[in-house]
């Protein structure tokens, strides 16, 4: 991340100098900061709501029941999660929210899952293999129906916007599987 960030920023600045986009560059830096604030405020709302809901799940014990139910599926991908750990529930709910395109629920539940996975982390500050699997699964975007894309297509007079559903589904499924495969290859190479 360090290298990537350095490249993005310094290449940006060098280009801005040579192309005379300096003013736009400086403005964009503060625009970036502004969108970080806006997104954080938006996240503050939805994350707090979902922390409230998941707390009710925890206090009622439902979180362990759901974990027990989905353990057989989830633990195939996440091998080092013990018993009916709450992280299984958080991961399950995040995956379901992703599948149904519920962005407002997927991100907060993903954060919850990361917290639960971090509770199992013995070396805080360093990522665990389970966290990596979870993040890779999320960056691969598993979605059954891309409602936002269909909405835009329909708006601009596409003959059959729903025709995009099947190709997206196939592309998503293949890329999610290859993402997990890529992770597995890296894991073999780095031996953990």
């Amino acid at each position: 991340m360090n290298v990537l960030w350095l490249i993005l920023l310094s290449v940006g600045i060098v280009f801005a100098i040579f192309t005379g986009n300096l003013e736009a560059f400086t403005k964009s830096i503060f625009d970036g900061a502004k969108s970080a604030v806006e997104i954080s405020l938006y996240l503050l709302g939805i994350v707090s709501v979902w922390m409230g809901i998941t707390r009710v799940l925890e206090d009622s014990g439902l979180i362990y029941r759901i974990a027990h139910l989905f353990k057989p599926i989830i633990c195939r991908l996440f091998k080092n999660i013990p018993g009916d750990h709450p992280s299984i529930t958080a991961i399950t709910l995040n995956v379901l929210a992703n599948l149904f395109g519920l962005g407002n629920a997927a991100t907060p539940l993903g954060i919850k899952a990361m917290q639960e996975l971090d509770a199992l982390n013995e070396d805080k500050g360093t990522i665990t293999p389970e966290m990596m699997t979870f993040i890779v699964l999320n960056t691969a975007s598993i979605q059954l129906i891309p409602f936002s894309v269909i909405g835009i297509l329909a708006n601009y007079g596409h003959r059959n916007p729903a025709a995009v559903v099947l190709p997206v589904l196939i592309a998503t499924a293949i890329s999610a599987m290859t993402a997990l495969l890529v992770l597995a290859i890296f894991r073999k190479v780095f031996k953990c």
Partner: protein
Amino acid sequence: MLKNVEYISLLIIPLFILFTVLYGTFKKVRVYDSFVTGAKEGPAIILNIFPYLVTIFVAIKGFQASGAFDYVKDAFYSLFAFLDIPIEAVSMAIIKPLSGSASTALFTDIVKTTGADSMATQMSAVIMGSAETTFYVLAVYLGAVSIKKTRYLVPVCLVSDFVGIAVAVVVTRWFF
């Protein structure tokens, strides 16, 4: 068919919340107090995430505004010219991992300028639907638990993004 699926996905969250509070009440949980206690964690989490978001957004927005993004796009375009991928889809493929709002804006623009049934639109639609804003996901999830050492996660995500886009291109060709 699609309408039904849309209705079901609208129904999921309300039903889930209803079930959660009813089950909690049945188990003698003071659901109101419980919810408040949980919601209290929200601000601390966001406070953790915020610095990560600022850091990555500054670099991404700067990169876009400097004109470097256009060069990268052109470079990719000429590099993969033999595959005959519309340039609009190339832009889409590069912008999608970086920024969610920018990719939505770009997609709308592509639909408007090339028409709703063009190859560029179809390909961008599949990329749009099957790729994720990788850098945002990384910032939010890693920030939430203050992970500093990410080991080989970032290379894995970048390689997967690249493969994912290649898959989207092939699948679009196959379908349309």
